Each structure stands twice: as C-alpha cells, then as structure tokens.
C-alpha cells in the first residue's frame, strides 16, 4: 500500500486540518467531536443543511459546505458512518432557528447513526428532518435488502436543497424538494481497480488485468457483476441503461447528466464516458441541459466512474443554477 499519509490513524484528523486550513474563507473545523461547518454562522432564519458519512469520498461532504449548499458536514472514520454525538453536535451548531435537514446516504450504519442523532437533537428542541438518498440502481431486489445505496446523486440533492434553503423555503419545503431530487435521480458505477482502505492495507477486492466490476458501491464493496474489460462506450451503455430504465426518463424530457470519477480516473476518461452517455440520452430524446463531470463522490484512489441522471424541470434547473460557494462546487 502506497499512500501519502502519515499513519492510518491520523488520516481523518490531518485531512480535516489541511482542508479547513486551505479553505479557511469557507469552512471551519471542529474537534471533539469532529465536524466541519461554514466559516460564518448559518444565516439566521435559513433552514440548515447537514450531511455526513464515512471519510474517503472527498470532496464529499466537507467540500460542499458553504453558501448555497451544506451548513455542516460530519466525516466518520474511513468508510465508516460518523457517530451520533458528532452528528448531533453538527446539527446543534448549524441550526439557525429554522430547523435542520439531514441528507443521509442510504447505508445501514449511516441511517442508524443519523436516527440516533436526531433523537438526541430533538431532545434539545431542534426541529430536524432527514432525507435518505438512494440513487444506486445497481442494488437489485431492493425491497428485500437494505435498499438501494446512496451514491453520487447525493451531491445533486445537497446542491438543490441548499439553493432552496437560501431562497427562503421553510423546513417542510426544503425537505419536500430534497425528496423530489431523490425521487428523480439514479446512478450506477463501475470500478476498474479496487481501493485500499489505509488501516486494511490491502485492496478491498482484486480484479484481474482484464476484469472490471459493474455496479460498484462507493466503499470498495464489490459490485453486482464482474465482467471482462470493454470499451468506454460499451461500459457507458451498461451503466446508463439501468439508470434510464429505473428512472423512466424518455423522449421530450430534460436531464442533468453527471459523470463522477471514483478518485483515480483521469479527467479525460470521464469526458469520454460523458460524451457517449450524452449521445445515448439524446438518441432517446432526452435533452441534456445541465452537466457535471469530475471527482465529486470518490472511493479513495479507485479507478472508475459512475453515471448519474437527474430529471430536470424548471424549478430544479433554477435551483441548480443558483449561486454556490464551496470548496468543490463554486459558481
């Protein structure tokens, strides 16, 4: 295992320290318990947005803290949900009187820890809601399992709910809107290589020189199916197909197309995937009116990508376009 780290134990604290030093105009670090908040308080009366989850997905979530997006982010240990007390502290800090919406990726651990934090925060008389993001169509039989995972679509939920909060929506309205994004977003990913969790020291799984893993999660979990390497266009078809089908998007509709890198894939490859996904969507009569390409929800140094499609209407488009000022998204 070769990593630019000092020890597996120090990765989280030192990442948070470096990140908040580099972006001190936007964010602030809190320790004991650890969370990241905006550098300035949540504007009074604005619904606050809190998200969090295991580390190793940077820039998620700390990179999305700032005006127009999250008010606080709670990083857990590597690939491990944060604890209830961390989340509770972030909720308390972020609340500016209008309540707090938690944006939670659908993993057993995340859901349980956020649930416990909400119980604690409610005891402090804070009005808290949660939306569960579950955009990953790679997980089948979802009603019989832990359900679909939350993956790259989380960024779109955070951005759009963040803009709604800035616009002045109340907690109910922001929650409804966040849920609307969840209902209209689907993703699926592929891994060309596994990633190595620092304390594990070994890759999460092993792929032969000519194998790829389709339907990968963002925690180095093996995916749905292991297949032989194909061309970028073929892989794009394998990913986009289930996304489009599950979302039921088609002729005459508008979409945001998001090609997300898993951390170790060159930008050039993401654009090659984007190019074909866009063509496929347009062949089906779907107009791609907004785009996002880059490393936003990563799995450490994994090589691979995911494709996310969000069905857009005028409201979502306006909120997507609204100003945002965070370390990772800025316009």
């Amino acid at each position, binding site marked *: 295992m070769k990593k630019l780290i000092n020890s597996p134990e120090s990765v989280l604290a030192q990442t948070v320290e470096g990140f908040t030093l580099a972006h001190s105009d936007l964010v602030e670090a809190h320790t004991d318990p650890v969370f990241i908040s905006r550098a300035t308080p949540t504007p009074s009366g604005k619904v606050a947005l809190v998200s969090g989850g*295991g580390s190793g997905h940077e820039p998620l979530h700390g990179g999305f803290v700032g005006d127009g997006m999250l008010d606080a982010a709670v990083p857990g*240990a590597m*690939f491990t949900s944060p604890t209830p007390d961390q989340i509770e502290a972030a909720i308390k800090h972020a609340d500016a009187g209008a309540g707090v919406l938690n944006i939670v990726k659908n993993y057993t651990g995340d859901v349980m*820890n956020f649930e416990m934090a909400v119980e604690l925060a409610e005891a402090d008389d804070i009005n808290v809601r949660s939306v569960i993001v579950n955009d990953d169509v790679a997980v089948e*039989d979802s009603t019989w399992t832990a359900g679909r995972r939350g993956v790259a679509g989380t960024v779109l939920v955070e951005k759009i709910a963040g803009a709604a909060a800035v616009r002045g929506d109340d907690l109910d309205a922001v929650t409804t809107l966040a849920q609307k994004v969840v209902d209209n977003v689907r993703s699926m990913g592929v891994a060309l290589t596994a990633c190595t969790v620092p304390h*594990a020291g070994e890759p*999460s799984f092993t792929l032969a020189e000519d194998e790829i893993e389709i339907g990968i*999660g963002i925690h*180095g979990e093996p995916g749905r199916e292991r297949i032989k390497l194909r061309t970028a266009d073929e892989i794009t078809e394998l990913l986009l197909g289930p996304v489009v089908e599950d979302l039921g998007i088609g002729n005459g509709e508008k979409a945001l197309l998001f090609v997300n890198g898993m951390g170790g894939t060159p930008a050039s490859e993401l654009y090659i995937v984007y190019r074909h996904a866009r063509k496929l969507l347009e062949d089906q009569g779907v107009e791609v009116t907004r785009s996002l390409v880059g490393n936003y929800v990563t799995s450490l140094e994994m090589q691979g990508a995911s494709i996310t499609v969000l069905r857009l209407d005028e409201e979502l488009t306006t909120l997507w376009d609204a100003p945002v000022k965070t370390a990772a998204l800025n316009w």
Partner: protein
Amino acid sequence: MTADVQWSLSWIRDVAARVSERKSEFTTLDREIGDADHGENLNRGFTAVVERIDGLEQPPGTIGDVLKLVATTLMSTVGGASGPLYGTAFLRASKAAAVPELDGQAASALISAALEGVSTRGKAVVGEKTMIDAWAPAAAAAAQSAENGEDAAQVFAAAAQAAAQGAEETIELKATKGRASYLGERSVGHKDPGATTTALILESAARTVQ
C-alpha cells in the same frame, strides 16, 4: 470467578484484548463482503472503552454501570453499523443487569436484552446473515440453560457455544441486511463479521466467568 462487577470489568477488558488481537481477521471478513472496516471499528471502540475503564475514579456499583459505560463509549467512537448496534445491545443489557452480581436467570436476561437491542435498532431477523444470527441462538440457548437452573457461568457457556455455531452457519446464508446484502448471491460462502464478533464477545464472557 462469580459473575460480579469485577468479572464484568475483566470480561470487557478481555473482549478488548481479543478484538485487538483478531482485528485484521474481522477486517478481512468485512473486506470480503463489506467495506473492510469491522475490525478497525470495534478495535477503536473497545480501546476507548478500556481507556475509560482505566480512568474510572471509583469502581462501578453494578454490572449495569459497566455495560452502560461500554454502550455510550461504543456509540460515540465506533460509528458504522456496528456502533449503534453494539451500542444499543450493551445499553439494553445494562438496564437488564442493574445488579452487582448475575445468577443464571439474570445472565440470560442480559443476553436477551442485548438481542432485543440489536433487533430494534437494525430491524433484521434471523437468517439475514447479520449479528442477529449469533445473538438469537445465543439468547435461546441461554434461556434454556437458565430454565434448567444452571448458573451464570453455564448460561454464558451455552450462549457462547450457540453464538459460535450461529456465526459459523452464516457462511451458508445469503445476506439481505447490511452492506453484504449488496452482494446478493455472492455473499454466500463468507462468514458474517458482526456474527463473528458477537461470538467472540460471548465466548469471552463465558471464559472469564469460569
């Protein structure tokens, strides 16, 4: 050793030592069907538990006090799925064991309360390839043993054996809860990490009380 407060401290210290010894085994199990952190998670948690025990100014009055300290520490240091699950298990157990010493019935009640905690929090049932598959047979064996009038040591021994067997049997199961469920059929053939650590916890209880 009788199943008293002193024992409960030894038990928890022993769990911490065993988890630290075997953490890479658990992480490997979790790498195969999860996200490669279960050993690290529990080790972080139990290391913190031992630190807090070491820092206690005065000895706890009841076994429940010890288990509550374990519960709150795990909740605030483990995270992931196992943090809330074991946290809730020990919290419920602490309520069931608010006594200075356990007889067979009380030992069985402790294990049943832990099972109930895991079920409430995780909403899994037997056969979903989770730690429930160790806790549930353990609670049943403990109840049977207590009903037979056996003492705490015998109750824990019965529970430990059932948990170990339950953990072993998760190998054949297909996961439908937790992270391993994403693998579907591919989860078959691997032992569930959480069931394995549950077996460790009960094995340690049995061994330290002997």
